[in-house]
């Protein structure tokens, strides 16, 4: 119990720090969204209109930093993240409709990449020194290639030249988003290419990590004992070698789940996929502070949640990390 209390206190402090930093960063940054809007519209906004805009965005009130901070917390606790300047809609709504796309696409791709990479790594590590080792340089090549370049090549090859997959978007725009097979099929069809590029570029890390751990664990005494016990080869490989080798993989997997939300900016830009990275990018371009803050907040919480998941998973998988009493 003490273990969980300690972890919860730790996460509470981290969350508070993240939210506070999130509050200060836009206020420290130079520039002001209304001036940006005025510049964008090249003098077509009168000083009166500019005043009105400031009032609309809550930038006219003469509040102290502390009052602003308290107000920020109050709104946050009500789930109100402010109004997006560039989309003229509540930030919470913008994020709510962007987040499922990112989590769905990148989450599935990450899970596929982790599962495949770990399985292949297990095989390569168990039978090291065979032809299977040749898979490593190949996959490392794809992960060494800059992601945007890999994605552009994939688009030019599979959508422009071969025409197998659409080059951008997340579903057929002529359809109405419903929970029908047709729509789901369209989402999978549109998501296939971006998911593929993510898997291809990230699988090497999982393979390499698992392979190296397998090689290390295979020479442990308990694996030799398992062999000496005459257990089935599969049991020794999975129950004794892989079961121990996967422990560090699991914690990096949980962490990579946290980076799904923030780490897909490039993919969403290249494929014009309307996920959270895409909105973050346009928010930065438009100096849309509330949306930026909202995106950062979501990313921070995703990482925190993933950390908690890693803690729990590790506790379940490794009895040595559980603390008795």
């Amino acid at each position, binding site marked *: 119990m003490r273990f969980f209390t300690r972890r919860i206190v730790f996460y509470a402090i981290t969350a508070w720090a993240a939210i506070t930093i999130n509050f200060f960063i836009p206020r420290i940054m130079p520039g002001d969204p209304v001036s940006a809007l005025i510049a964008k519209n090249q003098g077509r906004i009168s000083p009166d209109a500019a005043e009105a805009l400031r009032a609309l965005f809550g930038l006219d009130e003469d509040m102290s930093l502390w009052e602003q901070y308290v107000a920020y917390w109050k709104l946050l606790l009500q789930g109100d993240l402010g109004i997006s300047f560039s989309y003229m809609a509540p930030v919470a709504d913008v994020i709510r409709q962007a987040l499922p796309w990112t989590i769905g696409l990148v989450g599935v791709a990450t899970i596929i990449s982790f599962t495949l990479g770990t399985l292949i790594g297990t095989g390569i590590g168990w039978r090291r020194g065979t032809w299977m080792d040749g898979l490593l340089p190949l996959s490392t090549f794809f992960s060494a290639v800059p992601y945007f370049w890999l994605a552009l090549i994939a688009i030019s090859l599979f959508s422009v030249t071969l025409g197998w997959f659409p080059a951008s978007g997340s579903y057929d725009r002529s359809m109405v988003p419903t929970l029908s097979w047709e729509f789901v099929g369209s989402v999978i069809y549109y998501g296939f290419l971006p998911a593929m590029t993510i898997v291809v570029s990230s699988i090497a890390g999982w393979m390499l990590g698992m392979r190296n751990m397998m090689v290390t664990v295979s020479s442990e005494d*308990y694996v030799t*004992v398992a062999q*000496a*016990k*005459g*257990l089935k080869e599969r049991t020794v490989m999975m129950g004794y070698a892989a079961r*121990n080798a996967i422990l560090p993989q699991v914690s990096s997997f949980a962490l990579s789940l946290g980076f799904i939300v923030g780490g897909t900016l490039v993919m969403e830009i290249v494929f014009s996929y309307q996920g959270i990275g895409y909105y973050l990018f346009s928010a930065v371009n438009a100096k849309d502070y509330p949306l930026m803050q909202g995106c950062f907040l979501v990313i921070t919480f995703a990482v925190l949640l993933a950390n908690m998941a890693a803690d729990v998973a590790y506790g379940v998988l*490794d*009895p*040595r990390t559980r603390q008795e009493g």
Partner: protein
Amino acid sequence: MTAIDTQRAFRSGAAAVDPVLEIKNLSVDYGYDEDPTHVLRQVSLTLNRGEVLGLAGESGCGKSTLAYAATRLLPPPGLITGGEVIFTDRDGQSTDILTLSDADLRATRWQDLAIVFQGAMNSLNPVYRIGRQIADGISAHLPGVTKKEALERAAGMLELVGISADRLRDYPHQLSGGMRQRVMIAMALALDPQVLIMDEPTTALDVVMQRQIVEQIAELRDRLGFSVIFITHDVSLLIEIADRIAIMYAGEIVEDASAQDMYRRPRHPYSDALLHSFPPLRGPRRELTGIPGSPPDMSNLPTGCPYRDRCAHVFDACAAITPELVAPLVEGDDPRRSVACLRHDPAAVTAAGFEPQPVPVELSVR
């Protein structure tokens, strides 16, 4: 036929009474390249039913390699290059472990021949409860046994080695080093094997725990009747528990004799020196001497006797002839013992054209 030839013939004819494991001419190389290191060269060793055979020697002389090779657990780059390991079942059926198919090998492992390894700390899987680890070996060999029965049997095995059955649900990290080694022994005996190979089972433990474990093994052997190959570098410990002792040096067995003979009447200069480097547990005080020099480089062995550079009784023939195991040239010795020293083998010395030298007084104590 000379007297020595007769003695030789007698020795090879007087094969062990009831061998359970016979290692014949086993050779092991390390390295797959053109110039591998020969770590075991033509090692032959017989283990009789119910016997405790001690295998001793300095670090790096090939004791553990012998245990791993005989059970086909040798990790790469080890390679068995020749020999046989004959296992004889209780009903007299013999099989060569080295030629078994993988499936047959898995079936015989643990049931016929179990091993306890050096590292008491690392021999148990850290993420499984110890009960499960004992039980999975049982279920792998007795498919009819349910999980519950296997766990009950595991509990019985734990009690046998003096650990209470409620420890079954403990993880290895919750046990002390001595308890882990007991769990390993319980695990090894779970299927009532006929041969138990123990590779330095007490090395990582303190002396009190060593004593307890050794006594426990001796007691269990008397109760269950398995045979033991006990590998250690602690000769004084072996004299206490072994029936017979084989001394290894640079990948070869240099002397093989009953424990009492080895202790009181060593015939090989290396055995003699090894015995003088340990304080005896009982008996009159003796002066302790070390063995000068260090073991030879296994990848670059000298010609002739590998021990000659450190030997006090070296003579000209030692550089030219590689000694083989023969009966010692001492009147009234047990004909079943053997020693690989040219002082005891004048026939080989004469055949190579050298002048035989007498057995030194130290090596002919009666």
